[in-house]
């Protein structure tokens, strides 16, 4: 069995979606014959002539175009070259695409692929995690897959969904994360997954941080701590049932995310725990995020900016000691 990595899964999802539905097309910078900055579309230009289009550096127009195409019955998939540049298309995404169904009753099935998150040396403008920004706006669904199988199945689901989906794919996982197969567990997109079962504390997290959390849990298991890890998968809407179910088992919460600390997914998770799961808690719910500065370039600085297995472990030890 050959190995398949996260970016292969994305490419295969795009391929299979295009093969299944002639309405699916890809629009983005350098995604044609070049195959995309991360090679997510490699070979698709040749396989699907006329359906993989290179576009000018116009994130606003790309995003508006996606809405127009969706109105006419297509299912556009927009590749932002980096999640960070999607801010140039923010207006079209949050004000035009996201409001369209509510205002007009006409659905807008568009997918924005956002190569997200930090990697060493990427610096302030090629590293951002933007799920909270998009999750804030009504009318958008936000995916943050953490596994190879989810990269495939959730992108297929994103394309099939009749609403705009922000698909945050993590760049650190692109080539590093490999599995034997893309076959997953069939969990529907709106369900979080218990990625590791435990009983002493729960880490609720998503995207690349799932793997840091699993490492931290491994390390703590040497001391006898059993840490549960919940992979949210979908940042909006949040699966409150799975979050609260896990807290019922462990009584302790660490909400973990790579994004900036103000607001965001971890704040929402803590809010759910505090308002709906108060009686389940044995300790004050905790959050761990990146630092509140732009994301630094130098790799050692970058590692100290984001949560890592070590800082997660330290946070969990404090939580367990409460």
């Amino acid at each position, binding site marked *: 069995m050959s190995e398949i990595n996260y970016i292969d899964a994305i490419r295969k999802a795009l391929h299979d979606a295009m093969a299944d539905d002639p309405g699916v097309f890809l629009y983005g910078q350098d995604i044609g014959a070049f195959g995309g900055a991360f090679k997510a579309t490699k070979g698709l230009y040749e396989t699907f002539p006329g359906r993989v289009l290179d576009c*000018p550096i116009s994130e606003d*127009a790309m995003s508006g175009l996606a809405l127009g195409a969706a109105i006419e019955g297509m299912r556009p998939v927009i590749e932002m070259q980096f999640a960070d540049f999607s801010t140039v298309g923010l207006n079209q995404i949050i004000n035009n695409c996201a409001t369209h169904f509510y205002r007009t009753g*006409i659905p807008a099935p568009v997918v924005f692929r956002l190569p997200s998150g930090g990697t060493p040396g990427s610096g302030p403008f090629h590293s951002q995690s933007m799920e909270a920004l998009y999750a804030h706006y009504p009318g958008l669904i936000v995916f943050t897959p953490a596994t190879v199988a989810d990269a495939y199945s959730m992108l297929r689901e994103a394309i099939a969904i009749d609403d705009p989906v922000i698909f945050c794919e993590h760049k650190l996982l692109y080539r590093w994360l490999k599995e034997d197969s893309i076959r997953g567990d069939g969990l529907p997109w709106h369900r979080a997954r218990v990625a590791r079962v435990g009983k002493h504390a729960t880490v609720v997290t998503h995207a690349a941080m799932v793997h840091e959390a699993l490492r931290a849990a491994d390390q703590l298991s040497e001391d006898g701590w059993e840490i549960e890890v919940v992979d949210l998968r979908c940042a909006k809407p949040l699966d409150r049932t799975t979050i609260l179910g896990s807290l019922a088992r462990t009584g302790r919460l660490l909400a973990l995310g790579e994004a900036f600390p103000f607001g965001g997914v971890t704040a929402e998770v803590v809010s759910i725990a505090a308002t709906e799961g108060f009686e389940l808690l044995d300790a004050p719910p905790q959050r761990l995020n990146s630092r509140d500065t732009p994301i630094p370039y130098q790799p050692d600085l970058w590692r100290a900016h984001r949560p890592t297995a070590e800082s997660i472990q330290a946070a969990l030890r404090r939580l367990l000691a409460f």
Partner: protein
Amino acid sequence: MTSPDLLLKAYCTMLLARRLEEKITAIYRAGGIAGGVYVGRGQEALSAALGHSLRRGVDIFAPLIRDQAGRLAFGEDPAEGPRTYLGRATGPMRGRDGNVHRGRPSEGMPAMISHLGTMTSVVCGMLLARRMQGRETGVGATSLGDGATSTGAFHEGLNLAAVEKLPLVMVVANNQYAYSTPTSRQFVCADLVDKAVGYGIQGHTCPGNDLSECLNTIGKAVADARGGGGPQLIVAPFLRLSGHGEHDDAFYVDPALREGPLGRDCVDIAREQVLASGAADEETLATMAGEIADIVATATATAQKDPLPDPYAETWQALKTSCPA
């Protein structure tokens, strides 16, 4: 040369738009409308000419703030405006959006959002989709003001249309002001139409208050787009004959502009053109004015009688997809 019949038809649309918006303004002044009222007074010739150059069912029209006339020309029910201003459940936006932010996207008329310039690329997407589907694309027309030409969205959209060689018709209604800002604070190019050269597309100009000229110029631009000539930029100077909205008395408008050729009312010019063309005489126009008054009265009365949305029955669903908690 514009046919006398088309002149008359367009003039009739202009007058209907003028009277309808006067009625909406009257309701607003009586406190009957929440928010603002934005009228196309002065822009009716340009807007009607655009609407009448398009074919509903084939073409796309993304109207903007001052396109009541174009909307009617494109086939919008005269009650849609009043229903939307009054927030009625029967209007296309069902009270969820108001005033000029209305449309029927699945019928080729996207519903503008406030953010200026943004509808350009939406029209591009509609055209591109139709082309990919192997359908007749029709022409995709949209309009915006002198102020909106300063947005990034205008630039990105027009450039994208050029790159994709789309049959986009962009009408720039240069009414000399963006809210209170004169064009000198918006751009310094000698003529906005020179931008067409920069985008590698065809440019046209016509006096925006001259119906006959607007019909000629826009008719040609639409035909060029339809014939494969790519995007067309039309720049039409005239003067906004209202405030930005009906809350604004436009004290800042230069009196010299009001008195000059740009300040002439397009409805007066069109009336002269219709009479000169022989399409109608004074008596016919008087009858027509009576019919228009009836249409306006019926449209607004219908809207006023229509039901309001029920906040208790509202589903509060921003998504089509339903997902369990």
